[in-house]
């Protein structure tokens, strides 16, 4: 029986697009306009909702230039809450869900092809933070066994276990963050004295800091990755105070405290580049600066006008838009409600927070939801 949620695009065409994309990923290359045009045609024809969305706005043929590509309207992340946005005629094998919004509805990203996701995620991690494998990881995000629909847990599991062969301590329990387990894990890491990795949402890290727990210092060379997310309740720390507090609590240089930017509706991840790019270390050492993120070349980031959604020149602040080729099986054109500006020719962006009026969302809400149930 066919999956009614699945799209109607040919799996053979999807195979060809996927193979071509993997080639660009391996070469750390931007896909050419011809690739994007084929991907657009495939998704516009394979997903009825996407085709209708673009036709309603007068887009019925693929882009023939980079400017046309950037002008293509992107699907708002909210649309993932209301429609099955899948483009290939094949069974859905994974469903990643957003952590919820203040309106209570959860978006869902239906997947049938996770290879581009996994391949791209591994390459991006290795390029920005994972040149040396670390044997121990601590996750302040939910384990895939506990939350199989969490794309963050899926990614951490894949990078830590499948890519680096590491052991992961999942410190987010059914009752919330296990602070004692975090402290014990850090103590064990110090005993071994080998660099480790800690992944977590902003909210989880703030919970850890607010607990006042001692003994979180990590071995030299360790890295700490903040995956962002909004904080709804209580007083959020100023970003600059927050990074300094993390640095002091974990005994790490600000350069070793990085951040990852992605969302359930995407397959690719952006990372703060200062850990590998010495010319950008000043960004890390000035925590009051807005966070700078580098995308992989197959994920094009642009910024559009908050009112008209027209593309803005580099350097101007607006709403962040993604073209993520690793979303081969779903929708590559994703319109966020995040503010930012493009600050380099490679598409590095400064993330400036949520757009006014946008509802809070993000992986941080997972922990908040757990706490609200206690």
């Amino acid at each position, binding site marked *: 029986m066919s999956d009614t949620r699945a799209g109607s695009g040919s799996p053979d065409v999807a195979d060809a697009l996927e193979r071509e994309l993997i080639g660009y990923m391996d070469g750390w290359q931007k896909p050419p306009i011809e690739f994007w045009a084929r991907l657009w045609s495939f998704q516009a024809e394979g997903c009825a*909702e996407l085709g209708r969305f673009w036709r*309603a706005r007068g887009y019925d043929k693929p882009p023939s230039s980079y400017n046309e590509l950037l002008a293509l309207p992107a699907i*708002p992340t909210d*649309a993932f809450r*209301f429609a099955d946005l899948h483009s290939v005629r094949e069974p859905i094998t994974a469903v990643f869900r957003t952590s919820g919004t203040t309106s209570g509805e959860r978006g869902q990203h239906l997947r049938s092809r996770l290879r581009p996701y996994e391949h791209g995620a591994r390459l991006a991690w290795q390029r920005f933070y994972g040149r040396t494998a670390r044997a121990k990881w601590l996750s302040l995000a939910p384990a895939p066994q506990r939350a199989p629909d969490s794309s963050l847990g899926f990614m951490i599991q894949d990078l830590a276990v499948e890519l680096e062969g590491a052991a992961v301590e999942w410190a987010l329990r059914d009752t919330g963050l296990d602070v004692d387990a975090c402290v014990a894990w850090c103590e064990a890491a110090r005993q071994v004295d080998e660099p480790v990795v800690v992944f977590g949402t902003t909210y989880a890290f703030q919970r850890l800091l607010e607990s006042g727990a001692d003994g979180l210092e990590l071995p030299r060379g360790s890295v700490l990755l903040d995956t962002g997310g909004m904080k709804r309740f209580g007083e959020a720390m100023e970003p600059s105070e927050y990074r300094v507090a993390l640095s002091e609590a974990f005994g790490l240089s600000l350069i070793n405290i990085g951040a990852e930017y992605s969302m359930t509706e995407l397959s690719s991840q952006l990372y703060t580049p200062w850990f590998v790019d010495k010319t950008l270390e000043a960004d890390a050492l000035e925590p009051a600066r807005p966070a700078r993120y580098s995308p992989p070349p197959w994920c094009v980031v642009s910024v559009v006008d908050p009112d008209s959604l027209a593309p803005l020149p580099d350097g101007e602040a607006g709403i962040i838009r993604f073209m993520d080729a690793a979303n081969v099986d779903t929708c590559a054109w994703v319109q966020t*409600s995040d503010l930012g500006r493009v600050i380099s020719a490679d598409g590095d962006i400064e993330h400036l927070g949520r757009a*006014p*009026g*946008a509802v809070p969302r993000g992986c941080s809400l997972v922990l908040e939801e757990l706490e609200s149930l206690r």
Partner: protein
Amino acid sequence: MMTELRPLGLEQILKEWPQRAPLQRVGRRELEDRWISVVAAAEALHSKLAGLVDGVEVSSDSTRVHELGGVSQLRTLMETLEGIDRRFGDELAGTLAPLPVRPCRATLSLLADTSPQALLEELAIFAWLGMPSLVRAPRGRWRVPAMFLLELRMLGLGDAISLVTWPHDRSDLLAEAIRRSAVVRVWGRRSTLELVQKAAVGSAATLEFFGPKLSVAVATELTDLALVAEDIVVMEQRGCFSPQHLFFDGELANDPGAALDSLAASLSELQEGSPRPRRAPGEAEIIRAAATRAEFGGGLLRTGAFGDLWYMASPSHLNLGAGCRSLSCSQLPADSRGLEALLSPVSGQLSAVASLAPLHAEMLAVFKRAGAWRFCRLGELQAGRPSAIHEGRCRLGGLLVYERWN
């Protein structure tokens, strides 16, 4: 209709009042009813103010309010508001200096875009009673309230009123202003109300919140939609009388797409010669979220007419972005239970309901339970009192002050 796009000044309101005031048009019985309201309102005012204003006594004679301290007391109180720049439009610079003595009995009013008229009457009576008022207007949108306050000054009532703006994120200034105030009145969105509530923790001030309000319209024929368009255009969907949701009934319910197209045509006609509306911060995101729900939730979407107003037909959702330049539409539910369910997200927030066709009594009751207090014909949604009775009842100031001025 279009002349009402410009703000009304106090002098104009007073000039027009005899023609607009119910007193000029009602019969003896209604006059008596109104007099009873005046008495009740004055007694409520007495209770409200007796404990608030040092040196001011409100007599038990319900229609007369005596000021004991007079202007000198007022000036003394005002002098305690050190550090406040009272020039119109100037920003409050720096942190307010701490008061040497416990609180000056001031009122603090925080305005939303559309609220200066709602504020006017109470400001006037507080000024007359000798209570200084600090009015915070949205940044960049202080001119209209300034016009109102300037006219209060010209009437000799404005010496005690200061208009300020400050950045939205300066919660320290907000908290300090609240700490100095006996009464804090806030008009705004839920987020603003929450912000003030948080800043007022530990304060002894009385908080009066006026949250978002909206109105709805019911259209049954294509010809109705020209009138709906007029109701939309007059206040740019920002007022509590603005129709944020349109119910299709009768022939329109069968073809919502044609109804939206007809509405688009009417809005386009009105657009000519009208000023382009301006979006408030965050409005685009709120509208986009509602539009995405309509477009991907099985509804219809139109954009473009009258500036870039969005309007959408959605099977089962109301537009919750009250005060945004958007309009949601849906079929009028067949029974009162369905209507009750549809209106539940905006329970208590309805202001007015407009329809040319008579509404069934059960439907009327549901609208009333959701807060509606005014029922009128299409095209007349924005023709309420110029002083914008936000809560659907006469304001105390409206009952007392205008009587005496006239």
